[in-house]
């Protein structure tokens, strides 16, 4: 039976969260370590944007400042997410891991199946979206939660989890937000374009559901982590050992934090203004 590393739930700031995910991913390419599942939360509310998003066109900078919400650019693709009351997961695996097919969509499917199985343990019946669809009408296209993509998790047609990936040398990092609670007004207040905010917020509220709503608030982050862990174990036939970061991952995450994820050039301007070198 394959043994994976589990990094237990911990809250950190945005730069640390992204730096740790990327450090694990980079080290998995270099050292071919066993796959990792990591759970984390956010110390303060933060908007994360996708690698290719235009922060100045898609995020209301003043709105963020007014509400005390930070900004970080992810290494992965996709749209903006307001991280507040949520459980974030990250999975990292290298090409030797036979559980994962070598392409993007089927990797989403495998991980969504694991998450769905875990959610069933707390009584949530989530299903995988068969086909992606485009945002319609007043939908806030900037937001990850405005529309489900293929193989993302829905409950009664409403999105519960938004995920994105990064791939290199056959390895991948997939991380995603499982909402514990959701505030559509705040989400709309920090994402552009503003267009009939109340309508946008109402449409977003209709398209999103949360663990809190589905369980009547009876499940907290530790309970959700336990259930998701079991979902991965049962779906993939693996077991987890709890662990920490290696010395190399620690050192690289500190470097990434300082040079990349606390760097306004990366967070605001993106890839054109920042060369990796890692």
């Amino acid at each position, binding site marked *: 039976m394959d043994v994976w590393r589990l990094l237990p739930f911990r809250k950190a700031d945005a730069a640390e969260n992204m730096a740790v995910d990327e450090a694990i991913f980079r080290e998995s390419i270099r050292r071919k370590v066993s796959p990792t599942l990591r759970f984390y939360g956010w110390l303060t509310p933060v908007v994360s944007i996708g690698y290719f998003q235009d922060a100045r066109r898609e995020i209301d900078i003043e709105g963020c400042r007014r509400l005390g919400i930070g900004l970080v650019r992810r290494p*992965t693709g996709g749209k903006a997410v307001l991280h507040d009351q949520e459980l974030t997961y990250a999975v990292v695996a290298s090409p030797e891991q036979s559980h994962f097919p070598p392409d993007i969509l089927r990797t989403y499917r495998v991980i969504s199946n694991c998450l769905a199985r875990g959610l069933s343990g707390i009584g949530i019946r989530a299903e995988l979206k068969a086909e992606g669809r485009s945002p319609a009408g007043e939908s806030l296209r900037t937001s990850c939660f405005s529309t489900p*993509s293929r193989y993302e998790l829905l409950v009664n047609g409403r999105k519960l989890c938004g995920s994105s990936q*990064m791939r290199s040398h056959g390895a991948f990092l997939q991380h995603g937000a499982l909402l514990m609670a959701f505030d559509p007004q705040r989400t709309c207040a920090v994402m552009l374009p503003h267009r009939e905010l109340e309508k946008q917020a109402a449409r977003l509220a209709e398209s999103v559901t949360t663990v809190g709503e589905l369980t009547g608030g009876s499940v907290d982050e530790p309970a959700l982590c336990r259930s998701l862990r079991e979902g991965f174990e049962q779906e993939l036939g693996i077991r987890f050992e709890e662990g920490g970061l290696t010395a190399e991952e620690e050192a690289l995450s500190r470097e990434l934090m300082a040079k990349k994820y606390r760097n306004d050039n990366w967070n605001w301007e993106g890839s054109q203004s920042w060369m990796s070198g890692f």
Partner: protein
Amino acid sequence: MKLIPEDLLYSREHVWVRVEGDLATIGVTDYAQEKLGEIISLDLPEADSYVERDEPFGSIESAKAVVELISPVSGVVISVNEDITDDIGIVNSDPHDTGWMIIVEMDDQEELDDLLDTRGYQEFLIQETEAD
């Protein structure tokens, strides 16, 4: 059936190379574009920048995934295909020709020895599909 033209070399990272003297024209293979699906964003190096073998020379986004493009050779980028930054769909529709990405003046042509010919790449794809 994947297109694997005879006049190109291929990396195991699904990048093709057309060699003319010490110049290497580089792009992603038909197999890669098919696996990626519709490409929606692309990030390429600027002319005069330096790329290193086995290191990323750019990134591509499809299906909410950022995929790093791995350079098969080291050298200075002497040209970048501006047409594909204006119309990214070309990478999907014509990956081996008008969908080229960069031209690199190679430091060391011996780096080409590690690349695969058409037959070798075909066999590599079969292995990758079987392992899948």
